[in-house]
């Protein structure tokens, strides 16, 4: 074991802004994470969770860190062109991983709701974060999450007190801009809903230019008893970008989480979702849609742990692959020994449209209790020739017919996006991508 960070990740470990010694507990967490990074080293394809995903290009690129003093000047024109029409939200904008007060519009918050930037919280009310940061994710972290913990930039903090209900959604916009050289941004978010609280979160990753950069974000979501969270994630990074997300979810009794993950952008996108039930009768619904074309890689790892009885989980991921697109789906449902009456269903469906596309899917069940209802299903196929024939016999061109069928396939997931305004934007984006895709 060496004291050096694994080659390629030295810059990632440097925590932005906050000087060491500001908070002893935070320093300890960061030191521990940095140690873990050194212990873990760089995974290769022999590591089960990296079996189909190569880090070669990411390591070769070599990323430097974002210069935080500049971020506010990078978007002089504002972001009106990138807003979702008709969406009324509490908006927080992060530019290259750093909070931009100028572009954000928090609006008025109801009582019991606190929303702000992580670094502001660390200055104004560190005690509110002390017990919460790294609580969901725990001390044992995989490589990229540990890198984020050790060297995070800034992020969003949402704290809802008991019974607080947020009517308007929180909108979190990640902007990537002005990356003349490849840089890595490491945003870190914490959303904690106390008993009975309700909120909706819209998370969007946007880039203003087709630049090469890396986003390595970590989200910790803690849902208290009876809490409800709707979570729409729309990833539209630049076509050259690397995108990494670690999403950690802890659900107390009777809580309800519904997440929709739309993956459209990035050259190389990896998403890990780790969900754990800590109280009975909780429900978790994870849905996803990914489009991978050109040289894109869309890599999803889902890990749902039924640690207690009587919980319900549902995972439904769909993918459309064209060009030289590649997708990886690695889902695991773990049912612990005493987690009786678990109801878990996992499904992954893929539509392959081109000769050079590739899908690697691995839906696993690990079950240690007998009174359970668990299933998983996977399909890989192409557009049904008969459906195509039907549409063509009605006078549609081959490419239009294909596009319609693809949109129909994707429709199930798009429909489940919580906010209609967002749904429309996504449908439009998916349609546009299919239009430019070589579908014939």
């Amino acid at each position, binding site marked *: 074991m060496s004291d050096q960070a694994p080659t390629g990740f030295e810059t990632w470990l440097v925590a932005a802004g906050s000087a060491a010694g500001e908070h002893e507990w935070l320093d300890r967490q960061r030191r521990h994470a940095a140690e873990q990074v050194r212990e873990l080293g760089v995974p290769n394809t022999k590591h089960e969770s990296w079996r189909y995903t190569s880090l070669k290009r990411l390591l070769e690129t070599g990323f430097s860190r974002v210069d935080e003093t500049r971020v506010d000047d990078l978007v002089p024109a504002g972001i009106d062109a990138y807003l979702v029409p008709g969406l009324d939200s509490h908006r927080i904008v992060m530019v290259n991983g750093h909070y931009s007060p100028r572009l954000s519009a928090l609006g008025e918050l109801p009582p019991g709701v606190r929303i702000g930037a992580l670094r502001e919280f660390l200055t104004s009310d560190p005690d509110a974060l002390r017990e919460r940061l790294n609580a969901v994710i725990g001390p044992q972290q995989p490589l990229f999450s540990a890198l984020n913990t050790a060297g995070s930039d800034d992020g969003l903090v949402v704290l809802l007190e008991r019974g607080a209900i947020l009517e308007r959604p929180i909108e979190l916009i990640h902007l990537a801009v002005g990356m003349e050289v490849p840089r890595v941004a490491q945003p870190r978010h914490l959303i904690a809903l106390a008993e009975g609280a309700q909120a909706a979160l819209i998370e969007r990753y946007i880039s203003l230019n087709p630049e090469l950069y890396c986003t390595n974000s970590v989200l910790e979501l803690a849902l208290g008893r009876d809490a409800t969270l709707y979570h729409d994630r729309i990833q539209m990074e630049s076509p050259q970008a690397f995108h990494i997300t670690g999403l950690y979810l802890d659900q107390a009794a009777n809580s309800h989480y519904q997440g929709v993950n739309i993956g459209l952008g990035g050259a190389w996108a990896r998403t890990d979702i780790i969900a754990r039930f800590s109280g009975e009768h909780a429900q978790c619904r994870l849905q996803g849609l990914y489009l991978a074309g050109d040289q894109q890689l869309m890599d999803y790892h889902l890990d749902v742990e039924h640690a207690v009885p009587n919980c319900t989980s549902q995972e439904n991921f769909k993918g459309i692959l064209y060009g030289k697109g590649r997708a990886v789906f690695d889902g695991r449902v773990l049912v612990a*020994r005493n987690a009786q009456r678990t109801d878990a269903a996992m499904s992954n469906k893929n539509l392959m449209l081109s000769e050079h596309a590739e899908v690697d*899917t691995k839906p696993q069940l*690990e079950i240690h209790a007998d009174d359970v209802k668990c*299933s998983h299903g996977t399909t890989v196929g192409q557009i049904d020739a008969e459906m195509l024939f039907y549409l063509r016999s009605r006078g549609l061109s081959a490419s239009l017919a294909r596009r319609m069928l693809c949109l129909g396939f994707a429709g199930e997931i798009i429909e489940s996006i919580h906010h209609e305004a967002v749904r429309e934007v996504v449908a439009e984006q998916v349609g546009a991508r299919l239009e430019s895709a070589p579908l014939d």
Partner: protein
Amino acid sequence: MTSTQAVDEIVRSEYEHGFVTEIESDTLPPGLDEGVVRAISARKGEPEFMTEWRLKAYRHWLTMPTPHWAAVHYPPIDYQAISYFSAPKRPEDAPKSLDEIDPALLETYEKLGIPIEEQKALAGIAVDAVFDSVSVATTFRESLAEAGVIFCAISEAVHDHPELIQKYLGSVVPHTDNYYAGLNAAVFSDGTFVYVPEGVRCPMELSTYFRINARNTGQFERTLIIAERGSYVSYLEGCTAPQRDENQLHAAVVELIAMDDAEIKYSTVQNWYPGDERGRGGIYNFVTKRGDCRGARSKISWTQVETGSAITWKYPSCILRGDDSVGEFYSVAVTKGRQQADTGTKMIHLGRNTRSTIVSKGISAGEGQQTYRGLVRISQRAAGARNHTQCDSLLIGDRCSANTIPYIEVKHPSANLEHEATTSKISEDQLFYCRSRGLTAEDAVSMIVNGFCKEVFNELPMEFAVEAQKLLSISLEGAVG
């Protein structure tokens, strides 16, 4: 004389000496080195090419790490504590009569309806009289010879058909394949060799059971089956009756080769000793089975019923190389007590329009642990490939576990794949219905479980299917409380 030659000389001379003087005691002392590998080869009087083949495998095996990826747990195996060659037991060492045999074993024989003479043979009792199956076997051999089918021990084939052995042995499972296959290649004891010539439909189901010298093939069995163009063969391995065996580690290798239009059907019933109720002393069954559909329109079908062994680690696979070739895998695996099984299949689609079917039924009771681990790979060339996979698990009791780990890798857009898996327990409604019709709880469970496995039993040759059903009922006895 170089030093290597000198070493070789010494090793060889030692063996020669040993061969002459140790004719009475046919067992090599425990331990494994190049000398032991040479000694095994020499005792079997193998030609030079086989000795070299074994040594090459041994040298490679030394460089391989023990695999740890399977979901099975056991203490590390001391490969130096195993004796790698032991000739058939002499009559005076064997138990003298059924009185010396574990009554539990006899009870099982009774339930399976096994004739008394066969019970003795299975229990390892020295039988003086030639019993039925031997004479049956002789008749079988004659009609097989007439058809031109070669069916013999692999050690015989090494002498009688060296050209076939040289051409095919290790061509499907090379010694570099995995740790246990490497070990097997170095030290394999004996096994079966089948060669079906072009256009021949093998006149009967072949079974080790009918091969006179098949007994005591030892712990490192090696099977090689070659079906030439347009031929057909069905091969049965194992036996429903629990077999007594002193060897704890079994690392077998089975290689199947099907040429154009050929079909091989390979059925296994495995019921080795699972260990006592605390899981001590059971068999470790680490097997590499692979079929190569080399020819166009060829077909290889694996059917297995796995109820025995303390630990099972096996993945009968098909390489679908020929265009339009077909691979099938039907499996029932039962784990109870402290049994652990990590089993499944691999279907590697290389040729065009290749098809594969996987049906896996896992039943886990008591503290049994079971994992289905499968791979379906559609290569870039495999246009029109098709796969259907279904793996269902049935859990009985709250201390058992069932894992499903399918890997699906698709590199061709015209592939069609479906994978379905469910895990459930026997429903109260089903049980109640059966019980209301007067069935005991145990009979009801047995009936439901047999129904659950029916798809797989249908693939077994008829006699085997009947026995397998009985075996399943017996295996689950006492599992339901």
